[in-house]
């Protein structure tokens, strides 16, 4: 872990739905370019943690910070603007829009031209539209999707839809990327390609990644640290080796007989 201010930090984060404590006392600290895995049995609260960190839910307890700035109370789009982007467990693309437009949407927050400029197609409209067109195509090229730019997103094969979702998240110019089961439903070749993409964006953009994943080979392979969640609470934290030896973790996954 780096000594400087962590990029993303959560302190005692928790949320209560009626009588149910879905997540309790969740603390984490992720440094620059660090890749942390979040694992746990089904229903452990992993996706809830993501929803807490992206403004979908507001935490009922605890606080979280991005580069030292308090993020509680911010709505989804404000959290994205601040620099936390995510992908979804069940892919959420803009299905009827083209691959290119999907990425362009994420550039929207950096676009400034006014309504009048849009109505009259003033120079600022052309300047910004051309610029994001170029940027979006560059980003697609990085994921080898540039030839599919004008396809409807729903027509892409599964693995490429995942990639497009990551590309879209990248376009928001974020500092932390939350990936919710990116390898779910992928065959080994697609998973290998995904791994490649993740490494590529880490090297190129120096972003921090928090990753939920059930594919243990993937998690053990790329994560520097792993956080294990069970019944909404942190069960263990450590390096992949430590976690795979931890008796509590083994018990949670396999039962303690």
């Amino acid at each position, binding site marked *: 872990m780096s000594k400087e201010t962590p990029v993303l930090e959560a302190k005692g984060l928790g949320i209560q739905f009626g009588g149910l404590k879905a997540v309790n006392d969740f603390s984490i600290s992720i440094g620059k370019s660090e890749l942390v895995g979040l694992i746990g049995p089904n229903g452990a609260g992993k996706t809830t943690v993501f929803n807490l960190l*992206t403004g*979908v839910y507001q935490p009922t307890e605890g606080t979280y910070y991005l580069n030292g700035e308090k993020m509680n109370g911010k*709505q*989804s*789009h404000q959290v*994205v*603007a601040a620099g936390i*982007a*995510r992908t*979804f467990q069940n892919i*959420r*693309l*803009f*299905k*009827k*829009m083209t691959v290119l*437009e999907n990425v*362009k*949407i*994420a550039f*929207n*927050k950096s*676009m400034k*031209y006014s*309504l009048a400029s*849009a*109505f*009259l*197609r003033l120079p600022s*409209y*052309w300047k*910004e*539209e051309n610029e994001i067109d170029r940027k979006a195509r560059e980003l697609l090229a990085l994921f080898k999707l540039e030839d599919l730019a004008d396809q409807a997103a729903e027509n892409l094969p599964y693995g490429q839809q995942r990639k497009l979702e990551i590309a*879209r*998240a990248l*376009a*928001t110019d974020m500092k932390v990327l939350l990936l919710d089961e990116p390898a779910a439903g992928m065959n080994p070749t697609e998973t290998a390609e995904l791994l490649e993409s993740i490494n590529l964006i880490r090297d190129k953009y120096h972003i921090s990644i928090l990753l939920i994943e059930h594919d243990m080979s993937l998690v053990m392979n790329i994560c520097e640290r792993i956080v294990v969640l069970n019944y909404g609470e942190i069960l263990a934290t450590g390096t992949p080796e430590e976690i795979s030896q931890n008796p509590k973790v083994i018990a949670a996954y396999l039962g303690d007989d």
Partner: protein
Amino acid sequence: MSKKMKISYLINLIGVILLYLAMTFVFDNGVLGAKTTYITGIAIIAMMTIIIVCSLNLLTGYMGEFSLGHAGFMSTGAFSSAAVTIAMLEAHIALPTLLYFIIAILVGGLFSALMGFVVGIPALRLRGDYLAIVTVAFAEIVRVAFTNFPITGGGKTLSGIPKVSDYHYIFWVTVICVTLMYMYIRSRFGRAVIAIREDYIAAAASGINVTRYKVMTFVLSAFFAGVAGGIYSHYMTAIIPTFFNFMKSSEFLTMVILGGSGSLTGSIIGAAVLASLPEALRDFSIYRMLIYSVVLVIVMIFKPSGIFGTWEFSLPRIIFKLFGKKEAKGGAAK
């Protein structure tokens, strides 16, 4: 702006001017004989309907939210503009007809936009069926209120509105309104609105302020509906609040869906055809509602996305194709 875009704009402009010249030729010279005045009237109503149906398509087709109260916005526009121009007449403000007309449609549009803002902020927290019900309620409130306010005729017909709408003005206003809506859709704003329709959670997660864009689109849609209302009242010169009822709202929605939600071309054709169809079928009087319903059922079964789906007509595209040039990208449809 590329050279090709400039050529596209020029082609569109020429296309619109040719259409205008053809229309003035037909209407001014009485080519259609004794029926000319009658047909001009249908054309005016059709053009006004085009504006309101396109504005509704912004909500239904592009934003994916139903409004069953668009007649309410039209009513607001019609009565507010009428109230202002009547007051101006009484104050003996002598202005050219064109200026009167422009004031009327702007007042109608702005009042309606204001109403859209007031209704939109609380209502757009809701989605789907719930929002649809709120819009119905809004239109009913407008209808009942206008039936009781003295300034809107108090249940009787509000008459004495200056007749300043004529088809020359209305044609150009229609062109401008549709073009503006098209520009809106093909901008970062429209892109955000379509993304919200596709998946509002993903849109928010991509940095789109969902509420802001929804309210913006709602207000814009209300504005154009109000403009249509202004045109209507200043063409009819006498209006009654009960005209803008639930049936009227659902008629507009039918036109959007039949033409193709998500296609302005569809809205234009849908509005033009369905607005003039009752007149065209007048000879069959009792059967016309039957034909109308059968057409709707058939379209919905065989083409649920509407006649045009999300396809847009583009004059430059056709011309480039005819002359073997490469296809124009995003040429303005008209």
